[in-house]
């Protein structure tokens, strides 16, 4: 950092211990310069959020010295409350769940709430509200009810509310964790604008790609700073990152893999640099032969016709009758037909409000269609008596299932379902053990579910469903809010369950994840946009349609298309990172042979 830049935060040998002797911060020393964009990475439970609270003056550490905006708020573990009060007025915070941050039911009044607390004059408040709503592109929603907005819009309201207090430092604690692709993009755009206007930004995230835009990256582990430097420096420690439960951005992973395959590309986190190096290597390769050919599309699902259908929706329509605003019906699904063969995995993608969650509720028999029919595991859900037969055969993992944990111990929570099914005690016990083993929580039976880490709570909630041994597992964004390691664990778990013959239906925001399913179902504004195998859905021809629906292409495919535009003669358009690396290697080596 350049000499002479004033510091907005200075932490020296800071430690913070929570109840139960949990060391959230352990001897952390850190400075943040004015105007800097700092990104903090780390697995769940590494102390990131605690550090965020300390940086914005909401938590006072137990030991060390803290200076915020020139106010010495903590000296040798002694808190100066008056100094904290002064510093806090110019420190802003936005965190994960926008629902908890919005305190009123009109957008503009919520933005005004902070300035009102600071005693700003009415005229000045009016100016600030208008200015910040414009800056976050929420101007047209000034009079709207925040509960009616999408997650991305709500989060922008929360950011506008923080900015209206004119903070010198804005701390964003995983602002995109609960948002869809479009919502995350919009939050990133707002952050880039803040940087231009000179506001210091501290950004905490689980998405490695987002860290690339920062001036400096810090990686936390068990309350300590494990790595620190520019994004390129930090991400060059790939082995260490993996041991911390993180991974490098896609470009760096690809570069590393290409080097392993013997290609002379430089290691870099910069997408442009890598793409240039690849096209340089591939120069001089002969004319395209059979471009558009698909790599390794295994002839799977050939026997699909003979398998029984696990789920069968025919021309289903559904509307919410009791809409709060309009009093008339609001369409949620129109003319949706869908078949899933037993044992298949299906990924449902679509932006917020496209009807994904409603579709899942119909499949679970929690809602009945206005017209059309829903058959699940051979049962027509419209018949009340038959619907009872589904109990225990369909498992439903809702969004954030860990919020519904309730029992005193992990074992009791997991046993809730099987016990309700009326199974004998020894069978319940056996199933619980098996479910806990599957999710990797054996040995935690006696713990309170509320003591587990975020990722473990998610696994415990999923175990509660698996213990019922469902034939059909329905999941609503099972990876939302998890760190990379947690996401990987859930993906592995779903693979194992599918291996046992369970049909899996999941709603996901991740196109890379959807590309790994047997089939993909694309919903857009209550209607079906496309349905088919991932390689048929995710292709160059559909790119515009997917983009219009607020979606995108899986990263490997987007790369392949971009490289092809640069003249790299790729023989295949792969959907996985490994497939892409191999296709590139082949294209480049063919070039060398000639």
């Amino acid at each position, binding site marked *: 950092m350049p000499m002479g830049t004033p510091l907005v935060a200075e932490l020296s040998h800071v430690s913070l211990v929570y109840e139960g002797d949990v060391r959230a911060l352990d001897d952390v020393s850190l400075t943040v310069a004015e105007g800097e964009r700092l990104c903090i990475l780390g697995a769940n439970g590494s102390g990131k959020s605690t550090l965020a609270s300390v940086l914005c003056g*909401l938590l006072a550490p137990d030991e060390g010295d803290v200076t915020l905006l020139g106010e010495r708020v903590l000296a040798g573990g002694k808190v100066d409350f008056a100094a904290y009060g002064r510093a806090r007025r110019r420190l802003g*915070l936005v965190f994960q769940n926008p629902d908890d941050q919005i*305190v009123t039911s009109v957008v503009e009044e919520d933005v005004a709430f902070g300035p009102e607390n600071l005693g700003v004059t009415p005229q000045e408040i009016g100016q600030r509200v208008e200015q910040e709503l414009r800056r976050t592109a929420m101007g047209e929603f000034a009079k709207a009810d925040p509960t009616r907005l999408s997650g991305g819009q709500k989060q922008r309201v929360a950011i506008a509310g923080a900015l209206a207090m004119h903070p010198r430092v804005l701390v964003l604690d995983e602002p995109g964790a609960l948002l869809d692709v479009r919502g995350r993009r919009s939050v990133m755009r707002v952050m880039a604008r803040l940087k231009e206007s000179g506001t210091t930004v501290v950004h905490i995230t689980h998405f490695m790609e987002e860290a690339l835009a920062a001036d400096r990256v810090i990686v936390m582990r068990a309350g300590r700073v494990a790595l620190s430097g520019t994004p390129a420096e930090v991400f060059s420690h790939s082995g260490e990152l993996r041991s911390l439960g993180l991974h490098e951005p896609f470009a760096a992973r690809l570069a590393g893999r290409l080097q392993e395959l013997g290609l002379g590309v430089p290691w870099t986190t910069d997408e442009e640099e890598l793409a240039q190096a690849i096209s340089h290597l591939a120069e001089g390769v002969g004319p395209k032969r059979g471009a558009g050919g698909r790599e390794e599309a295994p002839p799977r699902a050939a026997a699909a016709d003979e398998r029984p259908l696990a789920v069968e929706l025919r021309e289903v329509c559904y509307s919410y009758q009791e809409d709060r605003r309009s009093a008339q019906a609001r369409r949620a699904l129109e003319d949706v037909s869908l078949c899933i063969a037993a044992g298949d995995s299906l990924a449902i993608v679509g932006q917020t409000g496209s009807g994904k969650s409603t579709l899942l509720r119909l499949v679970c028999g929690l809602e009945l269609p206005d017209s059309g029919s829903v058959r699940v595991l051979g049962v027509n859900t419209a018949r009340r008596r038959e619907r009872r037969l589904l109990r225990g055969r369909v498992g439903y993992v809702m969004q954030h299932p860990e919020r519904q944990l309730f029992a005193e111990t992990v074992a009791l929570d997991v046993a809730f379902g099987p016990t309700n099914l009326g199974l004998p005690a020894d069978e319940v016990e056996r199933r619980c053990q098996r479910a806990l083993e599957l999710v990797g929580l054996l040995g935690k039976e006696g713990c309170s579910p509320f003591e587990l880490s975020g990722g473990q709570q998610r696994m415990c909630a999923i175990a509660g469903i698996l213990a019922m041994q469902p034939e059909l597992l329905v999941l609503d964004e099972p990876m939302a809010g998890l760190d990379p390691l947690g996401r990987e664990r859930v993906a592995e778990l779903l693979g194992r369950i599918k291996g046992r013959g369970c049909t899996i239906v999941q709603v996901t925001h991740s196109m890379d994840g959807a590309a790994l399913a047997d089939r993909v179902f694309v919903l857009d504004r209550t209607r079906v946009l496309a349905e088919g195998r991932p390689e048929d859905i995710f292709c160059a021809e559909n790119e515009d349609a997917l983009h219009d629906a607020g979606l995108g292409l899986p990263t490997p495919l987007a790369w392949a298309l971009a490289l092809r535009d640069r003249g790299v003669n790729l023989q295949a358009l792969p959907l996985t990172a490994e497939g892409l690396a191999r296709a590139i290697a082949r294209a480049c080596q063919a070039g060398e042979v000639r």
Partner: protein
Amino acid sequence: MALRLTLGQYYPGGSLVHRLDPRTKLACSLACTLAVFFIGTPPQLAFGLAGALAATALAQLPARKVIASIRPLVAVLLVLSLFNLLFVRGGETLLSWRFLTVTTAGVHAALIFSMRLVVAVMAMAILLLTTTPMQLTDAFDAFLEPLARLGLPGHELAMVFSLMLRFIPTLADETQAILDAQSMRGAALGEGSPARRLRSVVPVLVALLASSIHHAEGLSRALDARCYAGGAGRSHWHPLRMTGRDWLALAVVASWIFALILLGHAL
């Protein structure tokens, strides 16, 4: 979704009623709600309903919004009417079958007592539809100021009320999610013996409590982050100011109530 309440349903607009000081609106609708209990005759009821409709028109609220606010009460009113119809005795007997007797007084009570509540509900609905929760909070704050002078948390009570309005829909959604999740896990909600039903409610309540605490923690972090420290040192974007309009509205409502009571004595 069925659990959604109609509280906190602000309907944006720029009508005369929207622009009134929230204290005026709060005072007027409270007075009207109380005055409704003076209604005892059909002319009074007609006068009351006419007043409510006039206020709705002045507020430029679409009829369906107001109807939607009354709808949750319809079931209660029907039951109330039925009780009045069957148990209020007096006047001529219109119908008598075994132990069921319907009298003119019963019909009278059934109509008047339930319909006058409609007027009260409409008064409240107009208040909630034309006033933002923040304005309501400010109004409560003003009315509770005597409490604050006695050292009681008047301002804080008003803030709690406002947050309640804001979080009712959120918690209603959450309750629905918990009910769904547990019924998918085979919970016998609303089935079996009363004892069994009662037992099945416990896990729902515990999960709801846990999630409320979770929200409360998030909310307290948010209030801290936005430097909320009670009423002292706070400014208002739209400071409350009584204008000629407000005094006029108060006068109109006062004379309306006076006329309503008078109407009952005249006839």
